[in-house]
Protein backbone atom coordinates (compact mmCIF):
# COMPACT_ATOMS: atom_id res chain seq x y z
CA UNK A 1 0.00 0.00 0.00
CA UNK A 2 2.37 2.64 -1.24
CA UNK A 3 0.31 5.75 -0.66
CA UNK A 4 -3.37 6.33 -1.29
CA UNK A 5 -5.29 8.35 -3.82
CA UNK A 6 -6.60 7.92 -7.32
CA UNK A 7 -4.42 8.06 -10.39
CA UNK A 8 -5.81 9.50 -13.60
CA UNK A 9 -7.43 6.81 -15.75
CA UNK A 10 -7.66 7.18 -19.51
CA UNK A 11 -10.74 6.15 -21.47
CA UNK A 12 -8.77 3.93 -23.82
CA UNK A 13 -7.25 2.00 -20.91
CA UNK A 14 -10.69 1.43 -19.37
CA UNK A 15 -12.03 0.31 -22.75
CA UNK A 16 -9.15 -2.10 -23.31
CA UNK A 17 -9.33 -3.64 -19.85
CA UNK A 18 -13.13 -4.02 -19.98
CA UNK A 19 -13.07 -5.60 -23.45
CA UNK A 20 -10.33 -8.04 -22.36
CA UNK A 21 -12.27 -8.87 -19.22
CA UNK A 22 -15.54 -9.54 -21.08
CA UNK A 23 -13.84 -11.73 -23.67
CA UNK A 24 -11.92 -13.64 -21.02
CA UNK A 25 -15.15 -14.29 -19.12
CA UNK A 26 -16.67 -15.65 -22.33
CA UNK A 27 -13.63 -17.89 -22.94
CA UNK A 28 -14.03 -19.26 -19.41
CA UNK A 29 -17.78 -19.66 -19.23
CA UNK A 30 -18.48 -20.50 -22.90
CA UNK A 31 -22.07 -19.38 -22.50
CA UNK A 32 -22.18 -17.60 -25.85
CA UNK A 33 -20.31 -20.41 -27.60
CA UNK A 34 -22.39 -23.19 -26.12
CA UNK A 35 -25.80 -21.53 -25.98
CA UNK A 36 -26.11 -18.47 -28.20
CA UNK A 37 -24.36 -19.88 -31.28
CA UNK A 38 -26.47 -23.07 -31.28
CA UNK A 39 -29.58 -20.93 -30.78
CA UNK A 40 -28.69 -18.87 -33.86
CA UNK A 41 -28.13 -22.04 -35.88
CA UNK A 42 -31.47 -23.36 -34.70
CA UNK A 43 -33.17 -20.18 -35.88
CA UNK A 44 -31.67 -20.72 -39.33
CA UNK A 45 -33.10 -24.25 -39.45
CA UNK A 46 -36.49 -22.99 -38.25
CA UNK A 47 -36.57 -20.43 -41.05
CA UNK A 48 -36.09 -23.28 -43.51
CA UNK A 49 -39.04 -25.15 -41.97
CA UNK A 50 -41.24 -22.05 -42.10
CA UNK A 51 -40.37 -21.02 -45.68
CA UNK A 52 -40.16 -24.56 -47.07
CA UNK A 53 -38.89 -23.66 -50.52
CA UNK A 54 -35.29 -23.84 -51.76
CA UNK A 55 -35.69 -21.02 -54.28
CA UNK A 56 -37.25 -18.70 -51.71
CA UNK A 57 -34.61 -19.61 -49.13
CA UNK A 58 -31.69 -18.78 -51.35
CA UNK A 59 -33.42 -15.55 -52.42
CA UNK A 60 -34.01 -14.31 -48.84
CA UNK A 61 -30.91 -15.87 -47.25
CA UNK A 62 -29.30 -12.49 -46.56
CA UNK A 63 -32.30 -11.27 -44.63
CA UNK A 64 -32.52 -14.46 -42.57
CA UNK A 65 -28.85 -14.25 -41.62
CA UNK A 66 -29.32 -10.74 -40.27
CA UNK A 67 -32.62 -11.55 -38.55
CA UNK A 68 -30.94 -14.43 -36.74
CA UNK A 69 -28.12 -12.02 -35.84
CA UNK A 70 -30.58 -9.53 -34.34
CA UNK A 71 -32.28 -12.19 -32.22
CA UNK A 72 -28.90 -13.42 -31.00
CA UNK A 73 -27.79 -9.84 -30.35
CA UNK A 74 -30.55 -9.47 -27.77
CA UNK A 75 -29.33 -12.52 -25.84
CA UNK A 76 -25.69 -11.59 -26.30
CA UNK A 77 -26.19 -8.10 -24.88
CA UNK A 78 -28.22 -9.41 -21.96
CA UNK A 79 -25.44 -11.91 -21.21
CA UNK A 80 -22.80 -9.19 -21.51
CA UNK A 81 -24.49 -7.15 -18.78
CA UNK A 82 -25.56 -10.15 -16.70
CA UNK A 83 -21.92 -11.04 -15.92
CA UNK A 84 -21.52 -7.50 -14.58
CA UNK A 85 -24.82 -7.22 -12.71
CA UNK A 86 -24.73 -10.64 -11.05
CA UNK A 87 -22.49 -9.70 -8.11
CA UNK A 88 -22.74 -5.92 -8.38
CA UNK A 89 -19.66 -5.56 -10.57
CA UNK A 90 -21.30 -2.97 -12.82
CA UNK A 91 -22.05 -0.97 -9.69
CA UNK A 92 -18.48 -1.50 -8.53
CA UNK A 93 -17.30 -0.06 -11.84
CA UNK A 94 -19.56 2.95 -11.36
CA UNK A 95 -18.46 3.40 -7.74
CA UNK A 96 -14.85 3.20 -8.83
CA UNK A 97 -15.50 6.16 -11.09
CA UNK A 98 -14.52 4.42 -14.32
CA UNK A 99 -15.31 6.67 -17.26
CA UNK A 100 -18.69 5.50 -18.64
CA UNK A 101 -17.46 6.20 -22.18
CA UNK A 102 -14.64 3.72 -21.55
CA UNK A 103 -17.05 1.10 -20.20
CA UNK A 104 -19.26 1.67 -23.25
CA UNK A 105 -16.46 1.29 -25.80
CA UNK A 106 -14.97 -1.71 -24.01
CA UNK A 107 -18.22 -3.62 -23.77
CA UNK A 108 -19.12 -2.73 -27.37
CA UNK A 109 -15.77 -4.07 -28.60
CA UNK A 110 -16.32 -7.36 -26.76
CA UNK A 111 -19.85 -7.65 -28.20
CA UNK A 112 -18.45 -6.88 -31.66
CA UNK A 113 -15.89 -9.67 -31.43
CA UNK A 114 -18.55 -12.20 -30.45
CA UNK A 115 -20.95 -10.95 -33.13
CA UNK A 116 -18.37 -11.28 -35.89
CA UNK A 117 -17.80 -14.93 -35.02
CA UNK A 118 -21.56 -15.48 -34.90
CA UNK A 119 -22.10 -13.83 -38.29
CA UNK A 120 -19.36 -15.92 -39.88
CA UNK A 121 -21.10 -19.05 -38.65
CA UNK A 122 -24.48 -17.83 -39.87
CA UNK A 123 -23.13 -16.94 -43.32
CA UNK A 124 -21.59 -20.37 -43.51
CA UNK A 125 -24.93 -21.87 -42.50
CA UNK A 126 -26.60 -19.85 -45.27
CA UNK A 127 -24.18 -21.25 -47.83
CA UNK A 128 -24.69 -24.80 -46.60
CA UNK A 129 -28.39 -24.84 -45.74
CA UNK A 130 -29.86 -22.28 -48.14
CA UNK A 131 -27.51 -23.05 -51.07
CA UNK A 132 -26.48 -19.48 -51.74
CA UNK A 133 -23.40 -18.94 -53.84
CA UNK A 134 -20.71 -16.47 -53.01
CA UNK A 135 -18.30 -15.32 -55.68
CA UNK A 136 -14.91 -13.80 -55.06
CA UNK A 137 -16.16 -10.38 -56.21
CA UNK A 138 -18.77 -10.44 -53.46
CA UNK A 139 -16.38 -11.33 -50.67
CA UNK A 140 -14.92 -7.82 -50.25
CA UNK A 141 -18.39 -6.32 -50.10
CA UNK A 142 -19.56 -8.93 -47.64
CA UNK A 143 -16.59 -8.45 -45.29
CA UNK A 144 -16.96 -4.66 -45.29
CA UNK A 145 -20.70 -4.99 -44.73
CA UNK A 146 -20.18 -7.37 -41.80
CA UNK A 147 -17.66 -5.05 -40.16
CA UNK A 148 -19.82 -1.92 -40.47
CA UNK A 149 -23.08 -3.65 -39.50
CA UNK A 150 -21.46 -5.36 -36.52
CA UNK A 151 -20.07 -2.09 -35.21
CA UNK A 152 -23.49 -0.46 -35.46
CA UNK A 153 -25.29 -3.38 -33.79
CA UNK A 154 -22.74 -3.59 -30.97
CA UNK A 155 -22.91 0.14 -30.20
CA UNK A 156 -26.71 0.23 -30.14
CA UNK A 157 -26.93 -3.03 -28.21
CA UNK A 158 -24.48 -1.89 -25.55
CA UNK A 159 -26.19 1.49 -25.26
CA UNK A 160 -29.67 0.11 -24.61
CA UNK A 161 -28.33 -2.91 -22.73
CA UNK A 162 -26.69 -0.49 -20.29
CA UNK A 163 -29.98 1.33 -19.80
CA UNK A 164 -31.93 -1.84 -19.03
CA UNK A 165 -29.14 -3.22 -16.83
CA UNK A 166 -29.08 0.06 -14.86
CA UNK A 167 -32.81 -0.26 -14.24
CA UNK A 168 -32.64 -3.68 -12.68
CA UNK A 169 -35.39 -6.16 -13.41
CA UNK A 170 -36.47 -4.45 -16.62
CA UNK A 171 -34.50 -6.55 -19.07
CA UNK A 172 -37.68 -7.25 -21.04
CA UNK A 173 -37.55 -3.65 -22.22
CA UNK A 174 -34.40 -4.27 -24.25
CA UNK A 175 -35.98 -5.66 -27.47
CA UNK A 176 -38.67 -2.96 -27.53
CA UNK A 177 -36.07 -0.21 -27.29
CA UNK A 178 -33.34 -1.76 -29.40
CA UNK A 179 -35.06 -3.39 -32.39
CA UNK A 180 -36.63 -0.22 -33.87
CA UNK A 181 -33.25 1.50 -33.66
CA UNK A 182 -31.37 -1.26 -35.50
CA UNK A 183 -33.95 -1.47 -38.30
CA UNK A 184 -31.67 0.52 -40.67
CA UNK A 185 -28.93 -2.04 -40.03
CA UNK A 186 -31.31 -4.88 -40.87
CA UNK A 187 -32.36 -3.16 -44.11
CA UNK A 188 -28.86 -2.08 -45.11
CA UNK A 189 -26.99 -5.24 -44.18
CA UNK A 190 -29.62 -7.42 -45.84
CA UNK A 191 -29.46 -5.51 -49.13
CA UNK A 192 -25.67 -5.50 -49.11
CA UNK A 193 -25.53 -9.21 -48.32
CA UNK A 194 -28.05 -9.99 -51.06
CA UNK A 195 -25.86 -8.07 -53.49
CA UNK A 196 -22.84 -10.03 -52.36
CA UNK A 197 -24.78 -13.25 -52.88
CA UNK A 198 -26.20 -11.80 -56.14
CA UNK A 199 -29.55 -13.21 -55.06
CA UNK A 200 -32.59 -11.98 -56.96
CA UNK A 201 -30.37 -10.79 -59.80
CA UNK A 202 -28.75 -8.05 -57.71
CA UNK A 203 -25.36 -6.77 -58.81
CA UNK A 204 -22.45 -6.66 -56.38
CA UNK A 205 -22.00 -2.94 -56.99
CA UNK A 206 -25.56 -2.28 -55.74
CA UNK A 207 -24.41 -3.19 -52.25
CA UNK A 208 -21.88 -0.45 -51.68
CA UNK A 209 -24.29 2.46 -51.02
CA UNK A 210 -25.75 0.31 -48.23
CA UNK A 211 -22.36 -0.19 -46.66
CA UNK A 212 -22.16 3.60 -46.56
CA UNK A 213 -25.45 3.74 -44.65
CA UNK A 214 -24.16 1.10 -42.21
CA UNK A 215 -20.96 3.07 -41.64
CA UNK A 216 -22.85 6.30 -40.97
CA UNK A 217 -25.11 4.42 -38.56
CA UNK A 218 -22.16 2.97 -36.65
CA UNK A 219 -20.45 6.36 -36.34
CA UNK A 220 -23.65 8.12 -35.22
CA UNK A 221 -24.38 5.63 -32.47
CA UNK A 222 -20.76 5.37 -31.37
CA UNK A 223 -20.79 9.10 -30.70
CA UNK A 224 -24.28 8.99 -29.20
CA UNK A 225 -23.25 6.17 -26.87
CA UNK A 226 -20.02 7.79 -25.75
CA UNK A 227 -21.91 10.94 -24.84
CA UNK A 228 -24.91 9.37 -23.15
CA UNK A 229 -23.88 6.01 -21.63
CA UNK A 230 -23.06 7.60 -18.27
CA UNK A 231 -26.56 9.03 -17.89
CA UNK A 232 -28.15 5.71 -18.79
CA UNK A 233 -26.35 3.37 -16.39
CA UNK A 234 -26.92 5.58 -13.35
CA UNK A 235 -29.69 4.36 -11.08
Amino acid sequence: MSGLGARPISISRVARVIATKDLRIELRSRVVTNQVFPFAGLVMVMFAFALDNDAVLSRVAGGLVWLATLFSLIILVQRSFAVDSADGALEAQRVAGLDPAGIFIGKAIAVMAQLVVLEMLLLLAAVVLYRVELHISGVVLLVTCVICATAGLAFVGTLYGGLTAGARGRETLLPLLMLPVVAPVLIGATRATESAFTSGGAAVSDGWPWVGVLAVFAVVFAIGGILSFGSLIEE
Partner: protein
Amino acid sequence: MSLVVDFRDAVVVFNGFPALAGATFQVTRGEVVLLQGPNGAGKTTLLRACAGLLPVVRGSANVLGIDLCVDRQSVRARVGLLGHANGLFADLTIRENILFWAQVIGASTDEVTATMHRMGIDGRIADEKVSLLSAGQKRRCALACLVVRRAELWLLDEPHAGLDAKGRDEIDAIIREASSFGATVLIASHELERTKGLATRSVSVVAGQVQ
Protein backbone atom coordinates in the same frame (compact mmCIF):
# COMPACT_ATOMS: atom_id res chain seq x y z
CA MET B 1 -7.68 17.73 11.01
CA SER B 2 -9.31 17.54 7.62
CA LEU B 3 -12.85 16.34 7.39
CA VAL B 4 -13.27 13.35 5.11
CA VAL B 5 -17.03 13.11 5.53
CA ASP B 6 -19.14 16.14 6.38
CA PHE B 7 -22.94 15.64 6.25
CA ARG B 8 -25.23 18.39 7.51
CA ASP B 9 -28.98 17.71 7.69
CA ALA B 10 -28.56 15.51 4.65
CA VAL B 11 -31.69 13.88 3.25
CA VAL B 12 -31.26 10.92 0.92
CA VAL B 13 -34.25 9.34 -0.76
CA PHE B 14 -34.24 5.72 -1.74
CA ASN B 15 -37.25 4.33 -3.64
CA GLY B 16 -39.33 7.32 -2.56
CA PHE B 17 -38.50 6.76 1.10
CA PRO B 18 -36.29 9.16 3.08
CA ALA B 19 -33.82 6.51 4.20
CA LEU B 20 -31.55 9.27 5.51
CA ALA B 21 -33.72 11.92 7.13
CA GLY B 22 -31.57 14.89 8.02
CA ALA B 23 -28.32 13.25 9.10
CA THR B 24 -25.49 15.35 10.53
CA PHE B 25 -22.24 13.46 10.70
CA GLN B 26 -18.52 14.20 10.51
CA VAL B 27 -15.49 11.96 10.14
CA THR B 28 -11.89 13.14 10.19
CA ARG B 29 -9.03 11.58 8.27
CA GLY B 30 -7.70 8.31 9.63
CA GLU B 31 -10.68 7.48 11.83
CA VAL B 32 -12.30 4.06 11.92
CA VAL B 33 -15.96 4.73 12.64
CA LEU B 34 -18.48 2.06 13.53
CA LEU B 35 -22.06 2.72 12.47
CA GLN B 36 -24.50 0.77 14.56
CA GLY B 37 -28.25 0.65 14.59
CA PRO B 38 -31.22 -1.53 13.76
CA ASN B 39 -31.98 -2.79 10.25
CA GLY B 40 -33.63 -0.18 8.09
CA ALA B 41 -32.17 2.70 10.10
CA GLY B 42 -30.28 4.02 7.09
CA LYS B 43 -26.75 2.64 7.55
CA THR B 44 -26.51 1.25 4.03
CA THR B 45 -28.00 4.42 2.56
CA LEU B 46 -25.45 6.52 4.44
CA LEU B 47 -22.59 4.47 3.01
CA ARG B 48 -24.01 4.54 -0.52
CA ALA B 49 -24.55 8.29 -0.30
CA CYS B 50 -20.91 8.72 0.81
CA ALA B 51 -19.88 6.76 -2.30
CA GLY B 52 -21.77 9.22 -4.49
CA LEU B 53 -24.26 6.58 -5.61
CA LEU B 54 -27.40 8.18 -4.22
CA PRO B 55 -28.27 11.86 -4.64
CA VAL B 56 -28.49 14.09 -1.57
CA VAL B 57 -31.77 15.92 -2.10
CA ARG B 58 -31.69 18.30 0.86
CA GLY B 59 -29.06 19.57 3.26
CA SER B 60 -25.38 19.46 2.40
CA ALA B 61 -22.88 16.65 2.02
CA ASN B 62 -19.14 16.82 1.41
CA VAL B 63 -16.92 13.78 0.99
CA LEU B 64 -13.15 14.21 0.56
CA GLY B 65 -13.78 17.90 -0.02
CA ILE B 66 -16.22 17.32 -2.88
CA ASP B 67 -19.75 18.67 -2.64
CA LEU B 68 -22.02 15.69 -3.40
CA CYS B 69 -24.96 17.95 -4.23
CA VAL B 70 -22.96 19.33 -7.17
CA ASP B 71 -20.71 16.47 -8.27
CA ARG B 72 -21.26 12.85 -7.39
CA GLN B 73 -18.86 11.55 -10.03
CA SER B 74 -15.38 12.68 -9.04
CA VAL B 75 -15.63 11.36 -5.49
CA ARG B 76 -16.11 7.82 -6.73
CA ALA B 77 -12.58 7.12 -7.91
CA ARG B 78 -11.35 7.85 -4.39
CA VAL B 79 -13.73 5.77 -2.27
CA GLY B 80 -14.22 2.04 -2.06
CA LEU B 81 -17.62 0.59 -1.24
CA LEU B 82 -18.04 -3.01 -0.23
CA GLY B 83 -21.75 -3.69 0.02
CA HIS B 84 -23.73 -6.88 0.31
CA ALA B 85 -22.44 -7.79 -3.16
CA ASN B 86 -18.73 -8.34 -3.61
CA GLY B 87 -18.59 -6.86 -7.10
CA LEU B 88 -16.47 -9.74 -8.39
CA PHE B 89 -16.64 -11.53 -11.73
CA ALA B 90 -17.66 -15.06 -10.86
CA ASP B 91 -16.11 -16.66 -13.95
CA LEU B 92 -12.66 -15.16 -13.42
CA THR B 93 -10.02 -16.20 -10.91
CA ILE B 94 -8.99 -14.18 -7.88
CA ARG B 95 -5.83 -13.06 -9.65
CA GLU B 96 -7.77 -11.94 -12.74
CA ASN B 97 -10.30 -10.04 -10.65
CA ILE B 98 -7.58 -8.12 -8.83
CA LEU B 99 -5.60 -7.65 -12.04
CA PHE B 100 -8.69 -6.13 -13.64
CA TRP B 101 -8.70 -3.28 -11.13
CA ALA B 102 -4.92 -3.01 -11.18
CA GLN B 103 -4.90 -2.65 -14.96
CA VAL B 104 -7.72 -0.11 -14.91
CA ILE B 105 -5.81 2.24 -12.61
CA GLY B 106 -2.38 1.30 -13.91
CA ALA B 107 -1.00 -0.46 -10.84
CA SER B 108 1.92 -2.81 -11.36
CA THR B 109 1.77 -6.60 -11.22
CA ASP B 110 4.13 -6.48 -8.23
CA GLU B 111 1.53 -4.51 -6.31
CA VAL B 112 -1.06 -7.17 -7.14
CA THR B 113 1.21 -9.98 -6.00
CA ALA B 114 2.09 -8.14 -2.79
CA THR B 115 -1.55 -7.38 -2.02
CA MET B 116 -2.61 -10.96 -2.63
CA HIS B 117 0.12 -12.19 -0.38
CA ARG B 118 -0.92 -9.84 2.42
CA MET B 119 -4.56 -10.85 2.06
CA GLY B 120 -3.64 -14.52 2.23
CA ILE B 121 -5.15 -15.27 -1.16
CA ASP B 122 -1.96 -16.11 -3.01
CA GLY B 123 -0.62 -19.51 -3.94
CA ARG B 124 -2.87 -22.17 -5.38
CA ILE B 125 -6.10 -20.43 -4.46
CA ALA B 126 -5.22 -17.37 -6.54
CA ASP B 127 -6.03 -19.26 -9.72
CA GLU B 128 -9.35 -20.67 -8.58
CA LYS B 129 -12.55 -19.35 -10.14
CA VAL B 130 -14.26 -16.94 -7.77
CA SER B 131 -17.53 -18.88 -8.01
CA LEU B 132 -15.78 -21.85 -6.35
CA LEU B 133 -14.52 -19.90 -3.33
CA SER B 134 -15.88 -19.64 0.20
CA ALA B 135 -17.64 -16.49 1.38
CA GLY B 136 -14.58 -15.42 3.37
CA GLN B 137 -12.24 -15.84 0.45
CA LYS B 138 -14.57 -13.83 -1.79
CA ARG B 139 -14.72 -11.05 0.81
CA ARG B 140 -10.94 -10.95 1.09
CA CYS B 141 -10.68 -10.82 -2.67
CA ALA B 142 -13.12 -7.89 -2.75
CA LEU B 143 -11.09 -6.07 -0.07
CA ALA B 144 -7.92 -6.73 -2.05
CA CYS B 145 -9.56 -4.91 -4.97
CA LEU B 146 -10.10 -1.88 -2.70
CA VAL B 147 -6.46 -2.01 -1.63
CA VAL B 148 -5.23 -2.19 -5.21
CA ARG B 149 -7.52 0.69 -6.15
CA ARG B 150 -5.94 2.70 -3.29
CA ALA B 151 -9.29 3.89 -1.94
CA GLU B 152 -8.88 6.74 0.55
CA LEU B 153 -12.24 6.16 2.19
CA TRP B 154 -13.42 2.62 2.83
CA LEU B 155 -17.14 2.12 3.17
CA LEU B 156 -17.82 -1.38 4.47
CA ASP B 157 -21.38 -2.63 4.78
CA GLU B 158 -21.55 -5.64 7.10
CA PRO B 159 -18.05 -6.86 6.17
CA HIS B 160 -18.31 -9.75 8.65
CA ALA B 161 -21.64 -11.10 7.45
CA GLY B 162 -21.60 -14.75 6.51
CA LEU B 163 -18.03 -15.41 7.66
CA ASP B 164 -16.72 -17.83 10.27
CA ALA B 165 -14.59 -16.73 13.25
CA LYS B 166 -11.33 -17.11 11.39
CA GLY B 167 -12.64 -15.16 8.41
CA ARG B 168 -13.80 -12.36 10.70
CA ASP B 169 -10.39 -12.11 12.33
CA GLU B 170 -8.78 -11.86 8.94
CA ILE B 171 -11.14 -9.06 7.88
CA ASP B 172 -10.32 -7.20 11.11
CA ALA B 173 -6.62 -7.49 10.39
CA ILE B 174 -7.10 -6.12 6.89
CA ILE B 175 -9.09 -3.16 8.19
CA ARG B 176 -6.43 -2.39 10.84
CA GLU B 177 -3.76 -2.46 8.22
CA ALA B 178 -5.70 -0.20 5.85
CA SER B 179 -6.20 2.25 8.69
CA SER B 180 -2.51 2.19 9.56
CA PHE B 181 -1.75 3.23 5.98
CA GLY B 182 -3.97 6.29 6.35
CA ALA B 183 -7.30 5.12 4.96
CA THR B 184 -10.44 6.34 6.66
CA VAL B 185 -12.90 3.54 7.33
CA LEU B 186 -16.65 3.52 7.94
CA ILE B 187 -18.07 0.17 9.02
CA ALA B 188 -21.74 -0.62 9.31
CA SER B 189 -22.03 -3.70 11.46
CA HIS B 190 -24.07 -5.69 13.93
CA GLU B 191 -20.84 -7.21 15.30
CA LEU B 192 -20.62 -4.62 18.07
CA GLU B 193 -18.16 -6.43 20.36
CA ARG B 194 -15.79 -7.26 17.58
CA THR B 195 -15.95 -3.94 15.77
CA LYS B 196 -15.72 -1.77 18.90
CA GLY B 197 -12.20 -3.03 19.44
CA LEU B 198 -11.44 -2.05 15.88
CA ALA B 199 -13.11 1.35 15.78
CA THR B 200 -11.79 4.62 17.11
CA ARG B 201 -15.36 5.83 17.58
CA SER B 202 -18.85 4.53 17.20
CA VAL B 203 -22.05 6.31 16.32
CA SER B 204 -25.58 5.04 16.14
CA VAL B 205 -27.87 5.49 13.19
CA VAL B 206 -31.52 5.56 14.23
CA ALA B 207 -34.49 6.23 11.96
CA GLY B 208 -32.45 7.95 9.31
CA GLN B 209 -30.50 10.17 11.71
CA VAL B 210 -27.02 9.93 13.18
CA GLN B 211 -26.75 10.30 16.95
